[in-house]
């Protein structure tokens, strides 16, 4: 599977999906004009990737500053995929990076993390 690298814009985050290294990162702000268009292809690719994954270790980092409700739904879908991959026997490490004084992002991370049981979840405050 080819790696995907999409640069951040004012309204969409940077996507760095390294399928060869099983390492993924979403970074920035997310309120694209059309959430379906921005995330659709990526989610489909990730879905196929997770379906084929067997006994691997996956690292997924979220470094978001702001996201809208539709993006939140996308994140929920992603968390579901990650949890399912972990349930299938893969080691899934999820890192939620947030600016230490951003209470909102901290709270959202905690809420998303609550749904993960099989996957490992780490909250990582940064300055």
């Amino acid at each position: 599977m080819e790696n995907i690298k999409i640069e951040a814009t004012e309204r969409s985050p940077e996507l760095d999906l390294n399928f060869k290294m099983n390492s993924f990162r979403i970074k920035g702000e997310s309120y694209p004009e059309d959430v379906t268009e921005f995330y659709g292809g990526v989610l489909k690719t990730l879905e196929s990737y997770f379906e084929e994954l067997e006994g691997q270790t996956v690292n997924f980092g979220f470094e978001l500053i702001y996201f809208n409700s539709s993006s939140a739904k996308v994140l929920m879908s992603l968390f579901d995929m990650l949890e399912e991959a972990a349930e299938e026997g893969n080691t899934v490490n999820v890192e939620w990076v947030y600016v230490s004084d951003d209470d909102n992002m901290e709270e959202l991370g905690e809420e998303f993390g609550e749904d993960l049981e099989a996957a490992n979840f780490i909250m990582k405050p940064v300055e």
Partner: protein
Amino acid sequence: MGFDLFEKEVRIFERGKAILESGTIADEGAAKEFKKLHKAYAKLFKTTKRLVKMSDRNEEKLNKLAYSLDEKGNMLEQLSQKLAKYLSPQVYESIFSGAQDVSLTTKRKKLTVFFSDIKDFTQTTEDLQPEDLTSLLNMYFTEMSFIALKHGATIDKFIGDAMLMFFGDPKSRGVEEDARCCLRMAVEMQRRMENLKKIWLEQGYEKPFQMRIGINTGYCNVGNFGSEDRMDYTIIGGEVNLAARLESSCDPGGILMSYETYALVKDLVETEEREPIRVKGIRREVKPFSVLNVNDDSCAGEKVFRQSCDGFNFFLNQEKLSGQDREKVRLELMNALDSLGGGS
């Protein structure tokens, strides 16, 4: 196949629908309950989709509003920064912090009032080209304002070539310290004028400005005067007039103060008592004291060196030199000294 944000939910809904249509639930009661649940799920799903859409729209609007507020905020900040130049920083700060009401209210306070003007300014204006005069005057006011703000003066106004400032309002360090700050400021201004004189002569101005300063301490009315539509934060009263009167009696390049100020600063200065003067609005006879010398290290000013003779023209304004240039000048001077030899 396109991507649906709610693909998973759609799949669950479709699966429920298929089960219902296939009639595979044998128990009639269970089938009825399943149908109810499926209907409730469909309703909940629709509501969720609507809420997400609505939330996105609201967030978009809020973001636009926040952006527009930021822009307006920046615009107001820039505007207030421009307006601030028309006010003394202390007055500006007290208004913008909310400590000062913008209404026609005044109070009586003991202030030290500073009044200055330029000797023979009218004559000078006639001798100079308007462009030169503007440049000279702006330089003079810029330099003096810098010193005034450094010492914490409230700059009331510039009246032609004159300056009215005071200490003790909106902020006061106590009547005595206010007077001492005012004196230190006046001394530094006159010292700076000495250096400016050299610079102006160097620039070709034949008759550089000479400043006269009058200082008085006393009770004044301070606050907003004028009309509800246009007001000035200023001071009025006999004590203000006395400062002006002292200034007009002052020697060029000198500082003349009343006994009331002298009593508060006498340990800082050597003075000479002058002939008493009378001022309209002040019943007492005023004893003026002219500043001869200052015994205060904090009044030290910067240095300008100027010397010229045949084959030698030297001008050094240390204040204008910074870091790298200072080192360059030092090296140049050392080279020049070397080239002069041992003095034989």
